[in-house]
């Protein structure tokens, strides 16, 4: 069980959360069937100053950044492999994938420098049919339950940023919704 399990549990959907108290929202203009669609549960995390979200159902666990071993001849976005209780997992640099950075975080290999890594940095381990894999993030925040009405298509111009499937918006909070398979590549 992840150390975050309890934390995540606490952030699970609270009916009060969807509607701020005392505020009547107009009936959302969506199809009745879409309204009944299950809310999208997502784990929110930070990269630089932007907030992102991945489907909770595909998150296996969240872990501290273990020492990584470089893998030669691998794509640049592969930071290295980590050992999670005996299992060898690849760890990818999401910033490089999303073009927030131009070179991978220098945290593996003999010249590893972890000083640039914030204390809050974590790896999120994702389930995937092609083999589970981890992504490095600057901080993990919480789990949100997005109603269909709170989800927008990805804004124009971000289409070339691979793996972005939409935006989640609630009040002044904004999340960039990612498709894990596309992000892992």
């Amino acid at each position, binding site marked *: 069980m992840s150390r975050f399990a309890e934390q995540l549990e606490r952030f699970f959907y609270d009916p009060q959360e969807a509607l701020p108290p005392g505020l009547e929202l107009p009936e959302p203009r969506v199809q009745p069937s879409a309204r009944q669609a299950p809310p999208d549960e997502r784990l929110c995390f930070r990269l630089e100053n932007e907030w992102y979200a991945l489907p909770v159902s595909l998150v296996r666990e969240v872990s501290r950044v273990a*020492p990584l*071993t470089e893998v*030669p001849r691998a794509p640049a976005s592969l930071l290295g*492999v980590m050992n999670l*209780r005996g299992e060898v997992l*690849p760890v990818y640099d999401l910033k490089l994938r999303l073009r927030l950075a131009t070179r991978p975080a220098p945290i593996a*290999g003999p010249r590893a420098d972890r000083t640039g890594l914030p204390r809050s940095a974590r790896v999120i381990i994702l389930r995937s049919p*092609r*083999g589970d*894999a981890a992504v490095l993030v600057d901080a993990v925040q919480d789990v949100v339950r997005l109603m269909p009405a709170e989800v927008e298509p990805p804004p124009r111009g971000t289409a070339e940023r691979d793996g972005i499937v939409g935006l989640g918006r609630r009040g002044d909070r904004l999340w960039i919704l990612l498709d894990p398979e596309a992000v892992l590549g």
Partner: protein
Amino acid sequence: MSDRGRERSEFLAESAEILETLGRDLLVLDEGRGGELDPELLNGIFRGAHSLKGLAGMFGEDRLATLAHAAEDLLDHLRLGKVEASDPVVDSLVEVVDVLQALLAEASREETTGALGSRATGLAARLRGLTQATAPAQVDLLDQLDLDPATRKVFTEYEEHRLRENLRKGMSLYRVRAEFDLSDFDVGLAKLNGQLKPLGEVISTLPSQRPGDETGIAFDLIYGTRRPERELLAALEGTPATAERLGRLEPAALAPEPPAAPVGKTPKKPRRAKGAKPLPPAPAVSNVTALPSSNGAAPARADSEASLRSLTETVRVDIRRLDSLMNAVGELLLIKGNLQRLAESAGHSSAIGPSRAWSQELTRESRALERKLEEVQEGLLGARMVPLGQVFEKLARLVRRLARDAGKELELVLSGGEVELDKLIVEELSDPLMHTIRNAIDHGIEAPEVREAQGKPRKGRISLRAVQRGNRVLLEVSDDGAGINEERVREVAVQRGLLTADEARELPTREAQNLIFTPGFSTARSISELSGRGVGLDVVKTNIASLSGLIDVHSERGNGTTFEITLPVTLAIVRALVVGAEGRTYAIPLSGVLEILSLSASEVRTVERRELLPVRGRTLPLVRLAPLFGHGPGTTGPLFALVLGLAQERIALVVDQLHGQQDIVVKPLGGRLSHIRGISGATDLGNRQTVLVLDVGALIEDSVAPEWKAEAL
């Protein structure tokens, strides 16, 4: 897995096991052609066919059941002496195993092909034909035996047959009487049987008509032997048994020898009429009624019991379960390493008495843990091991058929079948061995006439030898055939554009012979049925390499060819050399490391800028690990060259550090990274450090075929 699925896979595994035993026993029968049949062996084969018939019937595998049934009938006739073990009979029985195996393979894939079906039907019909060809009726020798009709009536058909056989062979027949205490008569009887069997045959065990005392029970064993009477009497010394010779009532009456024991009364009661017997006191009753079934010495009666029990005392385990256990043990070993480090540092850091004592105790306990873990590890490795004999038997059957088809006479000499290897390796080994032997039959062994003309024995000889050498097993396939025609090999290499005429001329013998492992290389001028299958030695090489093995060939024109295959004993735990390159650590399976040399820059030669290193008369491609993996140009400090070998290829790999050797459990890198060339997995060295394991085969292939590398990168 569903219950039905599990049952079915149990059925498949059990049937495969029975077939394996059948194959082995039939091989013995096949080899003993023309000689005396061993009745126990024949019985074993009969029981195997019987069990298989039952199992197949239960699971609705009618084709299997029908064929097994036909074989069972023929075997029954054979063991009853109604059919002779003629060549067609033995040949068909040997073929039955092959066809049953093919049927079983189809059953496991849940498919049914017509070709195999008609082969099975044809064979079953042939077996039935052979069964009906009953041996000519003989004068019943049994009539000549001084045995009263009541006793004769209780013999089973099989026992009668064995009696006749013994008489026909001129054995002396005895009635061995022995009395045992009721409490442990089974033990005594087994011991007596054990003493008698080496000298002859226990044909039947009957309860004696002469009742024992209050707490005893007596048996009559009908026994046949060729040994003189005094030897039998000597063997019986110290047992409660006495022997009495059964006389013959031959018309030209030679006076029967006087009985050795004073009591020679003719029995009056049939043995199964237990009610009529004077019973010992009450507590023993159950023992007496249980008698006929504990009477295991008569093989025919044991049939029905044997088929109810499982044939072996083995447990079948999915090898993946063993893998995951092995992984768990690997993890435990790492935890133990951490404990030991903790204990040591506790000992160093504290000057206080009690704490030091505590650390010593911790050290002691973790040592004990280490020993036990090693035991577990060894046990797990042992559970994966199977004797090579399993493959040898399959091959022996195949060789007979292939030789017959190819019109060559040969004998196969097997040795080292008891050498054990990891199950996974043994499974993967049968194909490459088969191709190597096929190659020897097809290209090596000459036709009988040719051999005679050359002053060689008509019969060719192929020998398959296995020897264990530490953590490796050496397998040798050698033949006394024509040897590799080196000139022809060079010629073909030029024709195929592999070499220029000049290169071919200058190629050393060893390397010329190794050309036969090149894909698509065949020097056979006439394509025979065997080589027509399109399997070459290149496939053998690939198969062996995938098992982290090496293959080498030595050949002498006119005297034969030897293939040497070296394999690791297991792939689960690998002894590895831990090396460093530009501060990165890598593990290399030691099975691929042939030599470690200290490298001095002046030794390195270049040809077209490719670096080469001469090592003992061979010039090896030199590969520097650091630049190869993009870790920079490589240090200028002291360097080491590791001679890596896989199949017949060798390269020299340059590293800058040697950290030592360690047993490692190799873990796969997973689907996402499996395509990375040169890395076969990762392992944990115990200090929470994950280290990548180099794929020796890929490294060698890439440096031998550099154009591939250019394409991929």
